[in-house]
């Protein structure tokens, strides 16, 4: 029997965050009005987890020749991709923690559950990133999803928030059922849930248990179900219908989190199963099939996301449709089998999206009352800093040079173009051009309309201020000097692609 390899060091970031989550629960139970202390506890946990992830990154780099590190009999796989995404999740969780303080304090919501659920969701996402087995993908997804359902309904007395949570819960469970059924069928075809064993089985064409030729139809139907399940989670068209309602109804700081974190987590599991396990070097036919399917999905997603966003009047719905469109852009990276550009894209996307939602949460005021664009008329000069920050984030999302969004799109389009996917890149560039219209419309509202009601100047706490500043810094850093980060990731590339 093979060794179990119970290496707790490899899951240290996960363990640290779980313990921090439980600690925030306990701390909140014994201290009233612990809003601010909990932010410090959470940040300390996240930074410690970040340090241990950094050490693991160095370990992976120094063991580069032996391939990825595995632990717990193949349940955990650590390579540069999983660690890069874990870093993204930690950044998202950190910014969301800072951002949510304002919401929790203003509306007197209990902070301990919010903060611990945020951390548990992050642990779930990290488990998805480091999963070497479909069971782990499923468990991580469930942890992240359940925590996010509750966060979406955190404003209990608000009907929109209730609707958002219920819709997210029902459709999320529905999509998880697809995913699980797909996993069961793939298991039936290949005889294993371990992704490495699955890829070997696909390569040899034999079931891992019976050593008989595998039933290919089962594998294809299973892969299709997985595609639908992940499609729901990352909100690609035509599985995107839940996104606008859920993003609109949830408290804005929660929307910032769930538009970035769980989405990036679904992307990394998607990459792990499709790009790495169903790779062209294992089965050319399977690979061609899903690449063709995904190409259609990506084009549909970009077009639907961008076109429908044009007619939205609520800023949160605009951002929701924009996030659908961004999922389409990121999918292009899948076609080129390039996880690095997808990871870079998810990083820039997360940072600029959290920044934009942070501005929205301040402008919308207490209880997210003013999310309609009409309400924002003439507010631009009253809150100049906020408006300029929003302008930067919006331009970055539209793909303006000197911002992170441009570099993210550039790398993705470039690798896809080099691999010969010309049509889809052209469609994507055209779509980016369309998107400029709805990204700039809030600016027109803010600066070029007369104020039609006496809006009070929006106030914000220092944590929100820090969030916006950090997001701005990140957007510019990734836009002007992406070279260092990208070369770090490029080193990882030689190791990963077999």
């Amino acid at each position, binding site marked *: *029997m093979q060794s*179990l390899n*119970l290496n707790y060091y490899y*899951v240290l970031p996960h363990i640290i965050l*779980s313990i921090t989550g*439980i600690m925030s*629960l306990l701390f909140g139970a014994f201290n*009233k009005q612990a809003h601010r202390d909990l932010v410090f506890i959470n940040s300390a946990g996240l930074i410690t987890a970040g340090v241990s992830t950094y050490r693991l990154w160095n370990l992976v780099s120094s063991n580069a020749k032996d391939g990825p590190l595995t632990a*717990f*009999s193949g*349940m*955990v796989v650590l390579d540069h991709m999983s660690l890069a995404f874990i870093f993204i999740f930690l950044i998202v969780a950190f910014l969301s923690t800072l951002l949510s303080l304002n919401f929790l304090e203003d509306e007197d919501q*209990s902070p301990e*559950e919010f903060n*611990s*659920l945020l951390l*548990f*969701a992050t*642990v*779930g996402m990290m*488990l998805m990133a480091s999963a070497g*087995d479909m*069971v*782990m993908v499923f*468990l*991580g997804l*469930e*942890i992240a999803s*359940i*925590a996010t*359902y*509750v966060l979406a*309904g*955190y404003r*209990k*007395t608000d009907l929109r928030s209730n609707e958002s*949570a219920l819709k997210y819960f029902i459709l999320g469970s529905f999509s998880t059922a697809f995913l699980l059924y797909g996993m069961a069928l793939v298991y039936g075809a290949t005889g294993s849930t371990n992704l490495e064993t699955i890829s070997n089985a696909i390569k040899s064409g034999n079931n891992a248990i019976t050593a008989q030729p595998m039933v290919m139809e089962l594998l294809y139907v299973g892969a299709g179900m997985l595609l639908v399940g992940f499609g729901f989670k990352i909100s690609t068209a035509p599985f995107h219908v839940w996104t606008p309602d859920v993003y609109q109804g949830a408290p804005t700081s929660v929307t910032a989190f769930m538009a970035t974190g769980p989405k990036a987590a679904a992307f990394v599991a998607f990459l792990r199963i499709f790009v790495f396990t169903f790779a062209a070097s294992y089965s050319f036919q399977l690979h061609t099939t899903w690449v063709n399917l995904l190409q259609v999905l990506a084009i549909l997603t970009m077009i639907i996301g961008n076109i429908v966003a044009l007619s939205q009047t609520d800023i949160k719905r605009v951002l929701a449709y924009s996030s659908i469109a961004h999922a389409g852009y990121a999918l292009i990276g899948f076609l080129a089998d390039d996880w690095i550009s997808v990871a870079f894209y998810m990083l820039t996307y997360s940072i600029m999206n959290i920044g934009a939602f942070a501005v929205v949460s301040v402008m919308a005021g207490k209880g997210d009352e003013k999310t309609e664009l009409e309400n924002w008329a003439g507010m631009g000069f009253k809150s100049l800093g906020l408006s300029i920050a929003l302008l930067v984030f919006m331009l970055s999302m539209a793909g303006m040079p000197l911002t992170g969004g441009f570099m993210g799109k550039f790398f993705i389009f470039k690798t896809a173009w080099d691999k010969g996917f010309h049509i889809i890149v052209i469609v994507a560039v055209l779509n980016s051009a369309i998107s400029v219209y709805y990204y700039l419309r809030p600016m027109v509202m803010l600066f070029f309309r007369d104020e039609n009601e006496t809006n009070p100047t929006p106030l914000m706490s220092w944590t929100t201020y820090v969030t916006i500043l950090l997001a701005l810094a990140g957007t510019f850093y990734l836009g002007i000097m992406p070279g260092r980060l990208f070369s770090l990731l490029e080193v990882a590339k030689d190791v990963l692609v077999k």
Partner: protein
Amino acid sequence: MRLVGLEAVIFYLFAVVAILFAIFMITARSAVHSALFLISTLVASAGLYFLLQAEFVAGVQILIYVGGVLVLFIFVIMLVNIKEEDTKIFNRQILIASILSFFLGLGIIAILLQTQKGNFFTLVSPLPPKIEQVQNSPNISQSHNISQNTIKIGQELYTRAVLPFEIASLVLLVAIVGAVRLARERKQEKIYD
């Protein structure tokens, strides 16, 4: 693998029953009926597990799901506003129900009498086997009526699948925290503050 003979008959019986009751469950008007159909579906799929010689999974299925659904059933009756006509569902077939439960009771008593070897009121329990006996027995499955399948599940759960097994507790923790948060009322929060 191809199903033949009685196995095929039983498989298709259970499969059709499971699917039919699943359809009934989502089309039933009354929530109570829905819950009952759900139990039937779950029992039928437990039957399918038996057919795969996975009697442990089948037992767990019945214990947890059917038990859990029964709790759900009670909650539905308590929480959902049941209309007038729906409240009478328990009274309609009272005669048949009482006859059935009479025979069921007789059956239970008969089994009890049989196992107690005539004397109903003294509890005779066989001595538990010594640990050495268990360890030295050449085939655990024969001495204890545990099938190889069940042994395999136990071994896998604590060796290869130990991490998912532990992480399942985190799923439960998140679910509990979330449920408490959403179900707690303002008044209760005020009291604790």
